[in-house]
């Protein structure tokens, strides 16, 4: 199919590039697939990642307690970062002659923290009206909008998250709409353009929202949806349209009128019209775009799982999922992650039944995938602390949680939900060297990120002004700090 031939081919190529041992992920093969200027095309990657890792040197962090997110903790462990990748992890890793050696006695090393639910850049600080770029709340279905077109790289919240160890994040549109638009996966590096932050090879996501927000926003304007049943009718109508759209293009392709990928269309007249929103939804149906679904209540999540089956797609993660513990078995069976807060509750009816053990119970279900998310520019700075509260609450309740397990809630599991777990999220050879060196146990309130590496480059070092990035907005605004 034309569609998958376009975007999916690009994804495959860049995934391959990401897994290779070259120092930098290869740039997108834009020259080969980019349409001619002015050509009407539905394929391609019009805003490609231009991310390049910052300069790095081979680095051996040794003598640390290493939580790999892929196995048992390693006491007195070492992690070797080379050419942007994790080169070795273990107890006995020799220091290459050219490596910087960081003695981490008493300190801990983990994969870079990943937040699967962020609005950094689309709801920048200061939170003035002019920075409200997260909700295209003009129609309940806006599958055509892309969060990356709202991201302000100068948001001063990015470096604060970096100081909290966050190396990657999924920036999503807000939850005013049933279908809010595409999310974008970013590397948390300071950059002049959003393209230079885009995580190479990460698939797109689609933001969907259940429950109170869409029905409140649109019901308040006396238009659909104003009820939960109106919400579901809205999703169904949108995906039905996407099914027709997809079939239309398939038939067009089968009719033989479609030329070779690089050729222009043979007959403009017979070609179906391109619809930006349906392109995104067709991408979901094709499995290329991952669904991230804001949904609080257990009963609504169960309906959304059925809806996904109805249209033949999978929900990567339910976000917020305050009642996920009530259907942890259903989530595990569907292979859908729960991305949750540690303890937010009660701010609205659908958040009333929040409990401290939610994340641990979702994790404990056989095959469960639990994630600590932030949805907050404050919370993103302390995802390790949020996880720690869950560890304590769960253990108190007799639900045993180890640190090895909890670290996955903020690293490997969000990477899975974002479709980048082959590239990052754990300390395993050949993965991106996205690494945090913590001053101590990352689940202690007294611990801070001392160093943060992204693709092997030291991008943040506490107390070192030369490695404490600040966005333009902060320049000259900090009260002499």
């Amino acid at each position, binding site marked *: 199919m034309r569609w998958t031939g376009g975007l999916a081919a690009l994804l495959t190529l860049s995934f391959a590039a990401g897994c290779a041992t070259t120092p930098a992920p290869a740039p997108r093969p834009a020259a080969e697939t980019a349409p001619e200027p002015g050509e009407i095309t539905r394929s391609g990657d019009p805003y490609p990642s231009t991310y390049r890792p910052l300069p790095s040197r081979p680095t051996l962090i040794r003598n640390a307690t290493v939580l790999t997110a892929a196995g048992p903790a390693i006491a007195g462990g070492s992690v070797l970062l080379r050419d942007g990748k994790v080169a070795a992890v273990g107890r006995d890793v020799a220091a290459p002659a050219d490596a910087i050696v960081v003695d981490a006695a008493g300190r801990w090393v983990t994969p870079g923290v990943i937040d699967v639910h962020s609005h950094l850049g689309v709801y920048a*600080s*200061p*939170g*003035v009206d002019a920075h409200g770029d997260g909700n295209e709340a003009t129609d309940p279905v806006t599958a055509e909008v892309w969060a990356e077109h709202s991201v302000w790289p100068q948001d*001063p*919240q990015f470096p*604060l998250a970096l100081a909290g160890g966050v190396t990657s994040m999924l920036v999503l549109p807000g939850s005013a709409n049933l279908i809010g638009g595409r999310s974008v996966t970013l590397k948390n590096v300071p950059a002049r353009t959003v393209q230079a932050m885009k995580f190479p090879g990460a698939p797109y996501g689609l933001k969907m929202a259940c429950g*109170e927000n869409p029905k409140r926003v649109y019901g308040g304007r006396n238009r659909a949806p104003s009820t939960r049943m109106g919400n579901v009718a809205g999703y169904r109508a949108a995906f039905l349209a996407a099914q027709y759209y997809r079939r239309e293009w398939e038939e067009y392709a089968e009719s033989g009128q479609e030329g070779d990928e690089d050729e222009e269309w043979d007959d403009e007249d017979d070609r179906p019209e391109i619809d930006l929103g349906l392109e995104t939804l067709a991408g979901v149906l094709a499995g290329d775009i991952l669904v991230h679904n804001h949904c609080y209540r257990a009963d609504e999540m169960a309906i959304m799982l059925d809806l996904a089956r109805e249209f033949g797609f999978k929900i990567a993660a339910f976000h917020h999922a305050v009642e996920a*513990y*009530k*259907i*942890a*078995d259903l989530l595990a069976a569907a292979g859908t992650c729960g991305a949750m807060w540690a*303890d*937010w*509750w*009660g*701010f*609205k*009816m659908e958040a*009333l*039944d*929040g*409990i*401290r*053990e939610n994340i641990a*119970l979702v994790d404990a*279900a056989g095959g469960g995938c639990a994630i600590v998310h932030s949805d907050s*520019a*404050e919370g993103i*700075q*302390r995802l390790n*602390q949020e996880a*720690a*509260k869950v*560890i*304590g*609450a769960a*253990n*108190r*309740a007799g*639900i045993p949680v180890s640190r090895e397990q909890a670290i996955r809630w903020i690293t490997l599991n969000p990477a899975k939900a974002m479709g980048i777990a082959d590239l990052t999220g754990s300390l395993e050879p050949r993965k991106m060297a996205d690494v945090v060196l913590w001053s101590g146990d990352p*689940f*202690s*309130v*007294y*611990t*801070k990120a001392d160093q943060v590496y992204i693709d092997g480059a030291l991008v943040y070092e506490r107390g070192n002004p030369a490695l404490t990035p600040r966005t333009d*907005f*902060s320049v000259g*605004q*900090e*009260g*002499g*700090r």
Partner: protein
Amino acid sequence: MSARGALAAVVVLALAAGPGALAETLAIVGGTVHTVGPQGTIEGGTVVVRDGKIAAVGRDVAVPAGARTIDARGKVVTPGLFDSLTRLGVVEVDQVETTRDFAVEDDEITAALTVAEAINPRSMLIPVNRVEGLTRAMVAPSPGASLIAGQGAIIHLGGGTDLVVRAQAAMFAALGEEGMSHAGGARGAALLRLREALQDAADYAANRPAFERGARRPYALSRLDLEALVPVVRGELPLVLSVDRASDIRAALALGREHSLRLILAGVTEGWTVAEEIAAAKVPVLVNPMVNLPARFEALAATLENAARLAKAGVTVAFATGDAHNARNIKQGAGNAVSYGMTWEDALRAMTLTPARIWGLADRLGSLEVGKEADVVVWDGDPLELATFPTQVVIRGVEVPMDSRQTRLRDRYRTLPGELPPAYRQP
């Protein structure tokens, strides 16, 4: 009256007086006791609680005969935590307006608004917060129609039908961006409105008979509001001003001096930049140590080191979450304050003895000292740590049940699926 009848009457009276009157004698034995008082920290200490009060604290304290013993060996014992800014008891669900009871859109009732009688002692938020060590809280109103929000009340989080410790504990008002939004859109107008209110209240207090005769100039505020402000202008009732920007903090300090107010500042995000002035004015501050975003133009100098820098400059610092559902996270804020430079002892004090002092309750609350009301928490580790929770909470001498709606929901759903739906699972 028969003996049984007399006993029943005593019980009824005791119940009416609250659970403290029926409290057992308790001996909390063997813990690391942080008294936050002159006795400092006592390893292997004992705290004896009798008739709702602390009867003894020390290493070599005998357990009274008949006392119920709580084994605190290997545990940490502290005074109950005190959050100096909450909405506890005046909100159940933020987005359900009928459960929000802390702001009034009526310009005839501003300073006169009280929250005390609106506080719901059966709020589900109370057990959720107290099982995590919160035993006292200031319940504050928010600005509605006016930059003057009304009067806050101090509550305990124990049982009973009345949680109010002090019904009219402080007057609340906002300057800065919030204040200007209630004054036509200019900081100068907000300050003018506040000064006008204070001047009118002083004039009213001195000329009540003339006012009653209708022989006084018109006032900007209603009679009820003027009446409520009289104790503020007399320096009897604290005025809590919300301010964040350094220039707003300085303007608030000037206002406090002018009117000889018992001033307290809340928010104070940029406080560290003018810490010496705040310290010199001897004005206490209520801060949330986890605020560090330049989220507004009045908070560009926000930093996680604010609390520590203020304390270091000699400012009296108490912690305040401004939250309700998660006021319990006040201890996470304290831990972060320590992580960013405050001493551990100062941080514990900022949510125990310091708020008691700021609110004028230090003779009754805030530390483990003989004669004080017995709010005591037994923790399974360092209370500032994230994974630490209380194993027992005592409020006014009574062991509170260590469960909440949340623990009950958890227990309903911890095994899935069950033979019968969770609706049949108790409790």
